[in-house]
């Protein structure tokens, strides 16, 4: 298969986006309509409560471990690295040895940060009680 240069290469992606953005919510609306007609709508209080243990749950603060945020922070660091490496990888052959050495320096700089995070224990899953 060969490439065909068109004026608007993203037109197809947009069409698919528009189609899915209409079709899937429309299906959900249709399902809502059908189930309203066929299924009994039970509005008992305990049944509408969130799924937990049986009795009606009392309101508690929902919170998640700070560990999750730590990994999200690490992701930002390394994903920026990858975004920087994509253009370099495409032009790997034209850039030659110079580009490769530059990238090794960049990776070494990142590896220092990575080893620091490793030694500090940021990559372990601590059980915080």
């Amino acid at each position, binding site marked *: *298969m*060969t*490439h*065909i240069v*068109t004026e608007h*290469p*993203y*037109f*197809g*992606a947009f*069409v*698919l*986006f528009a*189609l*899915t*953005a209409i*079709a*899937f*919510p429309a*299906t*959900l609306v249709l*399902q*809502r309509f059908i*189930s*309203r007609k*066929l299924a*009994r*709508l*039970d509005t008992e209080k305990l049944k*509408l*409560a*969130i*799924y*937990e243990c049986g009795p009606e749950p009392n309101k508690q603060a*929902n919170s*998640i*471990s700070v560990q*999750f945020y730590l*990994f*999200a922070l690490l*992701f930002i660091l*390394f*994903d920026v690295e*990858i975004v920087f*490496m*994509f253009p370099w*990888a*495409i*032009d790997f*052959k034209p850039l*030659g*040895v110079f580009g*490769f050495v530059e*990238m*090794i320096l960049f*990776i070494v700089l990142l590896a220092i940060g990575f080893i620091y995070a*490793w030694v500090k224990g940021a*990559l*372990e*899953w601590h059980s915080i009680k």
Partner: protein
Amino acid sequence: MDGYIIGTIIKAVLILLILSALAGFGTYLERKVLAFMQRRLGPYHVGPYGLLQILADGIKLFTKEDFIPAGANRIIFMIAPAITAATAFIALAAVPLLPEFTIFGIKVRPIVSDLNIGLLFVIAMMGVGLYGPLLAGMAQENKWGLLGSARTAVQFLSYEVVTGLSILAPIMMVGSLSLIDFNNYQAGGISHWIIWKQPLAFILFLISGYAETNRTPFDLLEHEAEIISGYATEYSGLRWGMFFIGEYTNMITIGFLASLIFLGGFNPLGFIPGGIAIILKVSFFFFLMLWIRAAWPHIRPDQLMWLCWKVLMPLAVLNILITGIVMMV
């Protein structure tokens, strides 16, 4: 130009219809294959060999009670499944599904939009798919849902890094991000496949692909034994089913990506024509996912993070450096 517009719209509609049907068929296939691996029969009541089970499931999903728990953020709760399904299909826009063929005298190129950054587009769209489970879990005011969405965020983000790093080495060899160029690079038989030069990248890509499609060894977002059903705890009916359509479409996309990047894409394979070859490859990857689900237990969240950050990521960086050195020498 008119032909281009109409053709693109027809292709998009066909992809939407065929792949939603395939995703539904995937659920049947998964149940059947898992059943045979566990010496059961699987679904066999509805239709011949249980083939109409999908239809029965669809009718059931459509007629279920439309349930939204009290205290949920209703709008986000309702649109979150649509985000998962929609992003899974948009990702397929840049994937060349079959080789060029002629039908009724019209030359058809089975790719919806021929982007020069196709691979990046697919990876990015599958990354956006993270918002489906994330918003679903946060909208329902449920502790299990919140835990599930936190795990979603951590797992998808971490393995996004490994996916990106593992495909960098093939990109260095090919020098392009277009999946069509990947396919053309491997023209000329099995010996030209990239997998022989990049076996490590292939394994890394497959592992992170499983993690990103939420398949069983990394099935922590909806781990029944730990967090009920994770982000899908409060979901029922077609909203719940839409998460599955998204998941199965993502599985098919990962199969296409793996066979296009590493296994020669849709080049003819000996006497097998290209179109059939790629379908066989994607079916093999789909079957591999089911096989691994039957063979492997879940892993723990801390093991997941350990595997990603301490094993796979250093290996991927090492693979890039070795590839660079080999290509320089």
